[in-house]
């Protein structure tokens, strides 16, 4: 029996980590993720969770301590955002390369300058090539569900990779929504204990982090890439089991009113729910438009993308991260690259906006649909087209 409780996004991910009975939390406060680690600290210090809370002196040390703890065989969790996320960057590669199933919530936030605290995906997008598995949550229920299932996926012996849950800073992290929480026994039945086959152990001394020469580095990186890409069937299998147990099913790309739609709008994260209302409005007016919500960002869900866009003529991708001097937005660019040569008949448009917590209204998503369709008809667009941004 699950119960429905009001939780802000920060508490939803913290609740999932508590129910996962994590052993170690190593974290450093940074807005807007501080609520997550405050709640974890409360759990530990009130005896609701038996774990070590390591209040490190920086985000670099947070991820380093997570590396140590996970490598020692402990179930490990942390959270970060924005500038702290960037400070972690060097360590992110090593946690992935060392095959350590650390789970991390990222309250997505813009990156300075200028100094800011509000949400966009500038931080998330910087980690696209680190080797972490990554999902975008669209609401607080998804934050809970993705966090809980992340432990199971990350620790699966077929996976053994770290997992990042992206959640919009403030608009999800600090907003209260009703979240269904399962019973502890249900969680325990879903999530077996973590056991790393090569945990640091004096009885089985191993050497970790050797120096590698050009003679083998390329082969190792290729193997790592093949491995990361190959985790999609396991992710789907575990999300299916999650659905069977808890009643909520997830897919790498969610389709909403997409069947037979001429135009598909694609949005990641919390704003996809605003986009849904825009799609509803247009559907009521008889327009052939649907929505794709991008959940799985890494590994990139090629097959799911091809399936999701079957029959569509136009794909309008919305992006929330500026790529200064680069080709368009990161999601737009990757979608175009993935579709090129596979669906040359599908016209792809990209529009950026909602940087640094700038709100985007339903009417503006309607504008995205209209302008996207116009770009598709025209067959060309500016490298950077934005909505809701002056200039």
């Amino acid at each position, binding site marked *: 029996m699950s119960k429905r409780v009001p939780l802000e996004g920060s508490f939803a991910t913290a609740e999932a980590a508590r129910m996962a009975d994590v*052993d*170690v939390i*190593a974290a450093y406060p940074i807005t807007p993720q501080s609520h997550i680690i405050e709640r974890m600290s409360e759990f530990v210090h009130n005896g609701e969770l*038996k*774990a*070590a809370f*390591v*209040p*490190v*002196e*920086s985000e*670099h*040390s*947070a991820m*380093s*301590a*997570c*590396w*140590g*703890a*996970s*490598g*020692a*065989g*402990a179930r*490990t969790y942390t959270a970060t955002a924005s500038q702290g996320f960037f400070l972690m960057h*060097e*360590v992110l590669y*090593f946690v992935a390369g060392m095959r350590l199933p650390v789970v991390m919530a990222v309250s997505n936030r813009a990156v300075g300058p200028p100094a800011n605290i509000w949400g966009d995906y500038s931080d998330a997008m910087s980690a696209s090539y680190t080797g972490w598995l990554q999902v975008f949550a669209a609401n607080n229920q998804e934050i809970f569900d993705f966090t809980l299932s992340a432990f199971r996926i990350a620790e699966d012996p077929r996976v053994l990779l770290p997992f990042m849950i992206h959640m919009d800073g403030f608009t999800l992290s600090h907003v209260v929504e009703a979240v269904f929480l399962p019973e502890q026994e249900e969680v325990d039945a879903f999530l077996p*204990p973590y056991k790393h086959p090569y945990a*640091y*152990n*004096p009885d*089985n*001394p*191993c*050497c*970790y*982090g*050797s*120096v*590698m*020469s050009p003679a*083998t580095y390329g082969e190792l990186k290729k193997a790592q890439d093949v491995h990361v890409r190959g985790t999609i069937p396991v992710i789907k299998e575990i999300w299916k089991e999650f659905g069977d147990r808890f009643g909520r099913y997830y897919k790498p790309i969610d389709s909403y009113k997409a069947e037979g739609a001429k135009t598909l709008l694609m949005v990641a994260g919390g704003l996809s729910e605003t986009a849904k209302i825009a799609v509803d409005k247009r559907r009521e007016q008889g327009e052939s438009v649907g929505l794709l919500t991008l959940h799985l960002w890494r590994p990139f869900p090629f097959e799911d993308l091809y399936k999701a866009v079957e029959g569509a003529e136009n794909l309008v991708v919305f992006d929330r991260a500026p790529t200064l001097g680069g080709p368009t937005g990161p999601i737009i660019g990757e979608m175009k690259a993935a579709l090129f040569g596979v669906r040359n008949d599908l016209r792809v448009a990209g529009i950026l906006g909602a940087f640094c917590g700038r709100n985007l209204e339903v009417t503006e998503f309607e504008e995205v649909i209209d302008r996207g369709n116009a770009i598709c008809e025209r067959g060309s667009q500016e490298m950077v087209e934005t909505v809701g941004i002056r200039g």
Partner: protein
Amino acid sequence: MAPDTIKVGKHQIDAKEYLAPGHTFCTGCGEALAIRLACKAIGNDAIIAMATGCSEVCTSPLPVTSWQLPWLHTLFENAGAEISGIEAGLKAMMRKGKAPERDIKFVAMGGDGGTSDIGLQSLSGALERGHDFLYLCWDNEAYMNTGIQRSSATPYGASTTTAPAGKLSMGQSTQKKNLVEIFAAHGIPYVATASPSYPFDFINKVKKGVAIKGPAYIHVYAVCPTGWRTTSDRTIEIGKLATETGVFPLYEIEGGKYRINYEPKNLKPVEEYLKAQGRFRHLSPSEIAKIQEKVNEDFALLKERAERLPAG
């Protein structure tokens, strides 16, 4: 059957080698010798996290390793945080019954660059939080692995590749950062200096460092023939000279109380130590006099502290 220990006078040393031969350290490397001896003092039940540096590169070129203990190469700047996570993780699992109760020795190691510069914050955090571990700093007084660049532990007057002696300079123009006092100021239970030129003193200190509950820090003097421009057969001798001249005194700070472990009747002139090394070859008599003055001051200060706060 081979004996478990080697007896040297009244001392017993573990006969087992934890750092296997075949590593690629330079001939006469003081750091290699120090690691070998330290591991004999640490023994089997240990997990080692080592910052990037000479030792990491020289002991772990894939597909071989010299390590007979579980050993992790961390990054350059995060050995303190890594060992924090390892210690916190294993102890949490022991408390929860997920791992068997066991007295594991958590040891982090780093060079002077990884300790005094880039890793200072991470180590300071780990010491302040009180994790139960020993940190061993191998101080060869510059970034030797990357080509003898200066660190904040490079002594005044030494010539390095980024603070060279030249027409307008006399090498390092700043004083060596006093890591021992910095870490002692964290109020941790045990801080010491040690040198492989005094192997039994060194081994005893490492044993003490791993036995003490809470954080311990040992600053180890590691003669580097390559970077110091000395011959490889003089490593032990130069290490002794450093202590006999007062450049590197051997002492402990236990619970804030000082103990000088070896005090020569009369300190030898610093010049003897400096003249033995190519890195100081350019120094003028007046610079040498300046260094002598500073060594005298520092040694007097140490003695004053040891008299005021004796460790019994």
